[in-house]
């Protein structure tokens, strides 16, 4: 037995009612589809979103500390320098979630020293986990072809082999940010997604010559957190670097001067652009780290106005000697 009506059971009225309903359903479906159809396609403009701000990731209650380790072996230099500033355990506690902001700006091999060396990435990730970190995220926003940048620099593999998570920026990773008292970073897209998940931030980057700013070091490294057409800031490069330093208050910064790009930066391209300077700087003060890094490039503070500007903004001190930096010679 079945309750289904036979076609012959339908009378004319019922047929018209049901046909009308079916037609209405079709029309409604079409109307919804038409209403949702995006005739323009996705825009390159960021979707209007609420502004965000970054927390202060520095460890409170600690005096600024700095160490300059001299040696050709990056792993050893890092180990000694971290120990000299109190050990990574002084900054990374059990359960911390750590963000490593590397420099992966170019899809170039590690040999050219245009990007953070993968050996340092692996070693630092490993040490963070050793200190008790629950998670380590590695990220940067190379505008052109991020996947190639992370792959060819060796950073992707370095992060993966150490158990860290690599975040490759996507359109939805950005949120607008306005830095208080800043003139340039106002309502500008920031690579925010990685910051949601962390409570500690470490910047790690090589020392490089830079055609526009004179040097690319710790403070300039935050440039890779910006999205949008950020190249417009090159016209006011010293101001933007200062504002980037105002934006990010890191837990620790690591400036790799094992090999310094002395000229033709920030891309370099030839081994001839490089010089073995065998120096690793670890500091809680990003301004002091850059001030010391300038000496590796043979430059002084007048060559790099952003350092004095950052000091004036109260971010740190250009007088790195005032921090009584530990000088460690690794033979």
């Amino acid at each position: 037995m079945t309750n289904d009506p036979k076609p012959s059971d339908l009378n004319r009225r019922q047929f018209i009612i049901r046909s009308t309903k079916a037609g209405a359903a079709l029309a409604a479906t079409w109307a919804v589809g038409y209403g949702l159809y995006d005739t323009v396609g996705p825009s390159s403009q960021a979707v209007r979103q609420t502004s965000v701000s970054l927390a202060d990731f520095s460890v409170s209650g600690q005096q600024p500390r700095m160490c300059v380790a001299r040696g050709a072996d990056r792993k050893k230099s890092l180990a000694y320098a971290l120990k000299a500033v109190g050990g990574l355990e002084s900054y990374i506690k059990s359960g911390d979630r750590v963000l490593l902001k590397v420099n992966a700006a170019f899809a170039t091999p590690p040999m050219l020293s245009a990007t953070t060396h993968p050996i340092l990435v692996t070693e630092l990730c490993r040490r963070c986990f050793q200190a008790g970190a629950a998670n380590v995220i590695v990220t940067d926003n190379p505008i052109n072809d991020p996947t190639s940048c992370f792959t060819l620099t060796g950073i992707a593999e370095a992060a993966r082999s150490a158990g860290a998570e690599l975040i490759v920026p996507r359109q939805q990773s950005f949120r607008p940010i306005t830095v208080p008292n800043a003139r340039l970073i106002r309502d500008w897209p920031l690579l925010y997604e990685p910051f949601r998940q962390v409570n500690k931030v470490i910047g790690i980057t090589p020392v490089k010559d830079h055609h526009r700013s004179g040097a690319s070091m710790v403070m300039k490294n935050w440039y890779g957190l910006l999205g949008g057409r950020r190249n417009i800031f090159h016209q006011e490069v010293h101001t933007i670097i200062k504002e980037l330093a105002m934006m990010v208050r890191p837990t620790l910064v690591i400036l790799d001067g094992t090999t310094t790009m002395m000229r033709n930066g920030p891309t370099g391209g030839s081994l001839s652009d490089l010089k073995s300077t065998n120096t690793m700087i670890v500091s809680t003060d990003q301004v002091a780290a850059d001030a010391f890094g300038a000496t590796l490039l043979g430059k002084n503070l007048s060559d790099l106005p952003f350092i004095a500007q950052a000091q004036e903004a109260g971010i740190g001190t250009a007088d790195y000697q005032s921090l009584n930096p530990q000088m460690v010679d690794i033979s």
Partner: protein
Amino acid sequence: MTSLINKTSKTQTLVSACIYLVLVVTASGILIRQFDLNPAVNVMRQQDSPGLQSPETRAFEAIVPLEGHLLPITPAEQFGPDTLSDKINGKAELYLSAHFKSLKTQRFKGLNDSSWWIEIYIYDMATGENAFAVYSSQMRDDAQPIDVGQYAYRTPNALFWVHGPYYVEAIASAVSTDAVDAMEAAAQAFVKKIRVKASRVTLQTLFPPEGLEQDSIKMIPADVFGYDRFDKVLIADYQQGSHTATAFLSKRANSDEAAALADGFHAFLLNFGGIAQPPMAELPHARIVEIFDTFDIVFKRGRYLAGIHEAADLDHALALARKLDQRLTEAGDDK
């Protein structure tokens, strides 16, 4: 009969609800995904955008079919003035100030060797002079000249050359003889297949040869010596005993422009703490400024703007300036 038609079982209602639910979830998924565009699509859009399909595309076609040497491992990428910094970041300013038109890059690997790869950058600088400017201003200290194009050299891991309006870099991921051989083959193929109008920068022959450090000759595209109106200036270093100085030279559109720039540079030096010195009989039309314990001399000769920069000794600087002036006088406006 009516009751039979309208009555549906609970099972039917449940199945219908499930179908609707699946449809809603599917529609929602599609809706969400359309805002999550694959970055590759954006890259494709950039490549397809008007203005980027330029004739320079042919340049790579000269390299790509290098059988026995190179195999493309990534698609070619192209950048214009608005996107150049996406590829080379802060160095873009150097090229933009030298009237950059476009950049095309691609990565290759050796056919039988996966231990290295190279990336080739082909910059179209519009003119040979512009190409020479970016080439010479980045010249490496350990450059070894090679016989490719109009100007070329190699370093342990890279080749750099100028061919007509193109400035080309080939950079290897490792120091490898095979990689260098492949890059040289690519360079030769490029020069052979891309026909250009040869344009050597002949102005440099006007520098006096005595004491000239030949490898030091560079063309600075813009902001020469920090003066924003100085562009396309050739510079050359001189070592005369213990004395060093930099001679500079630029051919301007006309005599008035050369004179105006000489005046402007003189004022610029005074503005930054320079002290004007009295004219010297050896070169009466030259302006002399002492600044930060060095001497700058600037003068014009016809369409040429010339001078000496940061000379430690005034007598040597004047002697060099006089020789330079003499050669400019002899050359007239022909160079």
